[in-house]
Each structure stands twice: as C-alpha cells, then as structure tokens.
C-alpha cells in the first residue's frame, strides 16, 4: 500500500512537472531557431536537429531603426509600474487590513466585513466593467498613456489582494500580543510597527508576491490605457506579432518576461517556510 502511494505520488509529480516545464523547454529551443528551423518540421535538439542562432534574442535589444523591437524600455516600465504599485498597495493594504482586523467600524449597515468585501469585490468584477470608468477617469486627469496613470490603476487592482490576505493574517495574530505591547509601553503605532508587523512577515511576503504577479502579468489595462508614449512588456510582446509570426523572438521575450517571477518565487519560497506564529499562543 505504501509503495503504491509513493509510486502514485511521484507519478503525479513527474506528469505535472513535464506538463509545466515542457512549454518552457519548447520556448527555449524555439528562441534559438530561425525561420528555416521553425518551419522545417519538428526539431528539438540544438546542433543535432537544427543549427542554433541568437537572432531571436538579438532582435529584442536592437533599436527599431536597426530592425529590432527593443523590449528594454517596456521591460523597465513594467518593472517600475509593478514594483511601485505593489509597494504602495502593500503599505496601504496592510494599514487598512490592520484597522479592519482590530477596530470595529460601523456606518449605518456597513460593518467591517462589508468593507473587506468591498475590497475583494473589486477583484471579483470582470476587468472589462472597470475599463471604461478607468479610461474616463484617467483621461479627465490627463494621465492616460502615462506611467503614473498605470500605477494609480494598478493600486486599485492590487490593494484588494493585499487587504484580503493581510486581514486574514492579522486575524490570526492574537490580539493579546498587541495588548501586551501596549502594556509594555508602546503606543498603538509602535505596537503595530514593533510587534505586529515583524510577526506578519510571512503574510507580507505572500501578499507582496501576489501583487507582483498580478501587476506583472496584466495585459488588459496596460493595453487599454496606454497608446504610444508608454508601453508595458505584455503589450510589447503581443505587438511583436506581425504578418510573419517571429516564433524565435516571441519565445525569447516570453522567457525574459517570466524570468523575474521565477526568481521571486524561488527567493520567497525560502522565507515562507521560515518564521511562524506557533509560539505566540498555545
């Protein structure tokens, strides 16, 4: 029975790994191909099946004047917008979540849970519903086609994630820890900064990771709210596609765009297993 279990477990893991990793390997080999190798039948192994070349990668960094597409600027735009919006969302979201977790709000029939749900409802709504209001809003304050405008919109999209994760997390941090900090001479702000926050690092990391992922992969709003001045990476990658699909540079750019997320995931995974609240309350 045990052996069967182990077999099934590993069988599943192997199948899933192949399922997830295979597209990356496919993209990796394709990125080193040229027109002939892509259209000349199924080939996998460089130097044996086909002659690899760096054309697909070179195109990405060449300026358009020299026949390239230059994804460097959109890359940094994406990074700037995602990181700034995530950071602001985490800061505002964490503060809101702490307030929602610890204090009782009441405005007519609106209570804490309703406020939390309002935040989440921003994510439940289909993005298309929000696109027109966002467009009109940004155009009225002259922020269409700008990094700042995108950051504002992304905060609206990312903050609910931060609030949602952090409310849940703070609810699990015993209130008595805050109270003990107050008794030990902290004012409420110090109690939050010195005691509650350091014990919420795993939650902050998870929330930060989700914000970065959802910010980084957004195509829809970047597509609708920018035109010529500012371009984000996902939009640029799609724009690569012209009359002839350049599979090699599409593959290369796809790999480049996924890379930061993979790196973030590997770093964060280590922190997530560390530090928990098990000793706070038994």
């Amino acid at each position, binding site marked *: 029975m045990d052996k069967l279990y182990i077999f099934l477990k590993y069988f599943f893991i192997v199948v899933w790994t192949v399922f997830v990793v295979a597209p990356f390997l496919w993209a990796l080999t394709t990125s080193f191909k040229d027109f002939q190798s892509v259209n000349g039948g199924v080939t996998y192994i460089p130097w044996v099946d086909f002659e690899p070349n760096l054309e697909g990668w070179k195109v990405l960094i060449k300026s358009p004047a020299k026949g390239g597409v230059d994804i460097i600027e959109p890359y940094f735009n994406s990074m700037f917008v995602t990181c700034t919006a995530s950071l602001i969302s985490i800061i505002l979201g964490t503060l809101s979540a702490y307030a929602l977790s610890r204090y009782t709000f009441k405005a007519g029939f609106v209570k804490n849970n309703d406020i939390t749900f309002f935040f989440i409802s921003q994510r439940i709504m289909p993005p298309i519903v929000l696109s027109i209001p966002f467009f009109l809003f940004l155009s009225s304050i002259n922020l269409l086609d700008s990094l700042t405008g995108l950051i504002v919109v992304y905060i609206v999209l990312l903050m609910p994630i931060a609030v949602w994760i952090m409310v849940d997390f703070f609810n699990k941090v015993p209130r008595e820890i805050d109270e003990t*900090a107050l*008794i030990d001479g902290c004012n409420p702000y110090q109690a939050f900064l010195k005691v509650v926050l350091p*014990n919420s690092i795993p939650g902050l990391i998870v929330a930060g990771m989700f914000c970065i992922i959802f910010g980084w992969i957004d195509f829809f709003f970047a597509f609708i709210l920018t035109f010529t001045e500012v371009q984000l990476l996902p939009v640029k990658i799609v724009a690569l596609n012209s009359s002839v699909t350049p599979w090699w540079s599409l593959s290369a750019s796809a790999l480049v765009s996924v890379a930061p997320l993979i790196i973030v995931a590997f770093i964060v995974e280590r922190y997530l297993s560390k530090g928990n609240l098990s000793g706070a309350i038994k």
Partner: protein
Amino acid sequence: MDLVANNLSYKPGDQYHLNEVSFNFKEGNLYTILGRTLSGKTTLLKTIAGLLTPDNGEIEFDGKNFLKIPVWERNVAMVYQQFINYPHLNVFENIAFPLKQRKINQSIINEKVMDALKSVGLLGYENRRIQELSGGQQQRVSLARSLVKNAKILLLDEPLVNLDYKLREQLREEFKNLFSKGLADKSILIYSTTDPRETMELNGEVIVLDEGKVLQVGTAKEIFENPNSLKVAEISNDPPMNIIEAKISDNHIRFEGIDLEAPQHLSKLTEDGLKIGLRSSDIELNENGHEFEVELAEISGSETLLHLKRGDTKIIVSIEEVLNFKIHDKVKINFKVDRAYAFNANGKLASSPFGGLNG
C-alpha cells in the same frame, strides 16, 4: 499609593461584565479575584490595565484619574492565561522589550533581565526562541517580562490555568515565594483565578466576583469560614459545597428520611426554606451511616470524588484515597453536621460553624 475604583460598570451587550464594582487596593498587598469563567475577572483586569474603558465609574491611582492615562503610560504589567510573548524575539529580547521601550541604558537592561531570568529560573535560556520553550517556560518568560518593569500594578490573569497539573503546582509554589520575597512591597498584586485552592494558598485578600458583581470581600480564611451566600459557597469550594434542602425542627435536621441531630449553631434556626451547606470533605464513608447510591465516581489525583444520590438529594463526597466504585453501588456515609452551614430562603448565610452571620 492606593488603587481605588468606584462603581465600575461595563455592559457591552445584554449582560454586565462589570456591575458596580468598587474596591480599594493598597500598595504592598496581594488581591485574589475569585470567580467562575466569564464572571468578569479578565474584564476587571483589562479595565485596570486600561485596555477597556468602563461605561461608568472611576478609577484613581495615587490620587490621579487613571481613566485619563493611556495604557502605555500606566506602568502596569499583565500576565495572560494564554502564554503571550513576542514570537519574533528571543527570550532575552522578550524580557528586555519593556525596558527598551523606556530607553533605559543597555547595561542596566542586561542586569535587570538577568535578574528577572534568575527569579523565574530560566538562566541559560536567554538566546532560545519562544517557540522552543514548553508552556510552563513560556509563561515564566511572560512573568519575567512583567517583573522586570517594576510595575506599580501587577495583574495576573489566571496565569496557571493552561498548564498541566504538575507544572501548576510547581509554578504556584514559585509565585508564592516571589510574592513573599518582598516583590509585593512596592506594588499592588492582583491575581485572578477560578480555583479556590489557589486562593487559599496565595492567602491574600479575596474578592469574589460573579456576573460582574462583587459578592464578598475578605481574607481567604474569612471567605472559607463564612461565605456570605450560597453563590459564594459554591464558587469558593471545589468541588462546590453540597446544598441540601432540609427541615430543621426540635433540634433535628431531616431530609430524605434521614434524621440528624442538629449541632448547636443550627439548633435555634426555625425559619422555612432553609438550605444546609456541607463541604464534600465533611462527609465520610461509614459502615453505620446512611445509604446512598453511586451515580458517578471520578478519581482526581489521589482523591476520589463520589457523586451520590438519595431520592431527590444529590451530593458530592471527596475521599482522600483512590477507591473503585461502580455506578449504582450502594455506599454508606456519615455527615459531620457540626461543620454544616445554613442558608436562608434567599440564599444568605444564616449560620456557620465558625460563628459568622450574614457575612
């Protein structure tokens, strides 16, 4: 420096958590708040700490209006029944936390923390993570953190309740030593508990609390000898005092066909609706006694608790040895009536073997 409260009331919902509570706590004394779960003990301690604001009433400390001073400036210390420490700090940092908050010189902090560690018996543990400690050790850390501050008011909210039996005994002993070592000289110690035995052992001034109301105030001995009402008799005894509905006439106590000669302190009572109170330890097994049926027998430590029944009368007997009984066994018992209490129809003490009348 007295801590004086006047008519504290707190009623967040339908029920009073505190109902007109008044007290006058004096420096250098230990006060035990005895009450069942949800009787308002924690609410009272949190109100003193400043974590809760009462709806009504005043608290004064050292002549100052305490309610106007925020928690973090009150110089109180509190130990919770859950073992509350800062999980992100190690043992040393946990204990040093309140001192660092006061921006005290590091060398003085080191010295004080080491002293505190020594007094709770945790020397050598200073670099451990909180998660690596047992429940008892965690509670010691939180005790050390409250000792190190030299707080004027030390609040202990059922600090032993979540520990296992052996640790509880051990730590209770240490508490007693700490309290008597002069720690209490300059502070007011307030200790809440559900356990009457703890109250007796700590031997301070006792406040019996129920449904947010103070039922009786007195020394442990006074509460034990003369509980002023049925409620107090129940709360201050574990197992609760047996209450028997009986008739007293012609120098005799009669119930369930049992006829006992009334002791002198009960013989003059004539009113109707009297209830007789008798501690479970004041009933003994006796071959020539009265027959009761065993409903349940539980062994607790080195004691056997017998739940007995005869007609409509149910009583609990504690026997200082481990005995095996089966349900529906018949046992014979004797009542030490000279140790019996009498309560009148509205639950007030009518007569006690120790001579107290109506508290």
